[in-house]
């Protein structure tokens, strides 16, 4: 199969600020992670791919087509934006169903597929609640549902795990993996390398609007293992969570920064993300969200960029 995305010398200016700076890369079939710190140009690239922005220079193709004002192409991809805004007054069912109607599905089919998509992302019980009552993680899952409900060829996911709770993260990653196993292609951006690791070995690194490396994840990961990975946990029970995670032997530091969260540093982030949900459930803890400052990734980029 030809490349899902082919970008050549792509540049985009926001006034005097350079969003993309001669970005050149290709994304093949399967799951590809676009990894870079905040402000690297990940969202800019995705917005060009979905036709929301137009490049100032260079060339880009999504499924071998120019995405700008390309109405038929929009049937072939699903997009999950980074921000958390949705039509808050709608229920999740109505939200997904309405967007499926805009994909051309008749009302009855849209209803069925909306229900299936919400079940896939684990929102069956909450599907008839207004979206404004959803937690951040639930909104992420609702956004994912609307992105994949119409069976697109490609999913373009901008920071899909941002702010999601541990259960939500597992659900989202499981959904992405299942989608890819069934033949779909996924472009997924993140500023946390270890999020990508759960689902793929193919990554493209972006920094200051440029593609700086692409290929196998493990070689790149080895570069940052010497740096502890920071994870911020949002919880109304910081002391209890701190006590629970202190028992993990790869945790090297815990900072109780605020009354509603704590910062954990770990030498084995994959083990941390894998073990945390079980600890949360076993101790009956209330964890509202996980976020990763990109300190470790900055170290990698400093190494790669020089």
């Amino acid at each position, binding site marked *: 199969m030809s490349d899902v995305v082919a970008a050549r010398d792509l540049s985009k200016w*926001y006034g005097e600020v350079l969003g993309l700076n001669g970005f050149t890369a290709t994304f093949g079939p399967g799951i590809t992670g676009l990894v870079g710190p905040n402000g690297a140009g990940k969202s800019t690239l995705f*917005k060009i791919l*979905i*036709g*929301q*922005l*137009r490049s100032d220079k260079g060339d880009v193709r999504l499924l071998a087509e120019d995405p700008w*004002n390309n*109405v*038929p192409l*929009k*049937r072939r*991809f*699903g*997009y999950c*934006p980074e*921000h958390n*805004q*949705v*039509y808050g*007054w709608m229920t999740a069912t109505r939200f997904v169903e*309405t*967007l499926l*109607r*805009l*994909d*051309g599905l008749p009302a009855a089919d849209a209803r069925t597929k909306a229900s299936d998509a919400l079940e896939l992302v684990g929102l069956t019980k909450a599907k008839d609640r207004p979206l404004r009552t959803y937690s951040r993680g639930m909104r992420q899952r609702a956004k994912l549902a*609307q992105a994949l409900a119409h069976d697109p060829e490609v999913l373009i996911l901008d920071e899909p795990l941002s702010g999601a709770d541990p259960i939500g993260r597992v659900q989202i990653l499981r959904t992405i993996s299942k989608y890819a196993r069934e033949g779909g292609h996924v472009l997924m951006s993140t500023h946390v390398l270890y999020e990508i690791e759960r689902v793929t070995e193919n990554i493209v690194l972006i920094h200051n609007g440029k593609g700086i490396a692409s290929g196998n994840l493990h070689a790149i990961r080895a570069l940052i293992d010497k740096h502890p990975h920071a994870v911020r946990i949002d919880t109304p029970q910081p002391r209890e969570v701190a006590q629970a995670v202190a028992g993990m032997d790869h945790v090297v530091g815990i900072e109780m920064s605020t009354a509603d969260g704590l910062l954990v540093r770990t030498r084995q982030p994959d083990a941390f993300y894998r073990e945390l949900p079980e600890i949360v459930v076993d101790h009956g803890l209330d964890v509202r969200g996980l976020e990763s400052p990109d300190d470790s990734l900055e170290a990698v980029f400093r190494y790669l960029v020089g």
Partner: protein
Amino acid sequence: MAFAQTLGKSWVVTLLTVRYLLSTRRVIAMALFAVVPVLLAGSLALARVRTFDILLFQVLMVPLFLQVVLIFVTLVNATALIREEIDDNTLPYLLTRPIGKPAIVVSKYVGYLGTVLILLIPSVVLAYVITEAYSGVPIGSDADVLGGFLAVTVLGSAAYGALFLFISVLLRKPLAVGLMIGFLWESVVGSIPGNVPKLSIIYYLRSILKGTIEIGPLTGFPTDVSAGLAAAILVLLSVAFLVAAMFVFQQNEFRQKA
């Protein structure tokens, strides 16, 4: 088949727009504004004002309804159609669907028009009925007055809506410019001599009233434009602004707020 599909999708956007405009807290303020003519007519009737009749109704409805209520309701709703979706970061959900940008603009405009007319027409009709009932005349006695004000409500909503929609896709802060046009230009331009008043929407709305109402103070409006011609001009203006909005929207990029 493709055309039927586009129509179907456009209808979905139209319904989405109507639900959106009627579901936010803004609709409460709009509804309160819209019933001002009813409240005024009711107050005059309750206070048993001797001079309250269909002539006074005409005199009050121009400054109150045409120049305040109509402009305010159309301005707030039309500028929200696209600009609020941009500011609320919900526009990508529509832009990433297989429906053309011009179709989105037209569909939202139709939804706007339906919503605004739902708010305004009952108010005009009810204010008229209260006036006639208080005067003790049959409801249909001054059907020309009711017809005239219904016509300007529909055509004014269409024209102002298209204008404000165009401004909102062109500018980041459309409300300020819309307020200046709606409450400054439209009020002041009538007193400028020559043909300058013809550069306002209110001129053609008042020409329609002059042409449709047989007896009353509004028949003295200085215009050489017939009601039919005024209506045609307003329709043309609506179409022109709508097409301009479609063109600008098609070419625009949309950067989301962080």
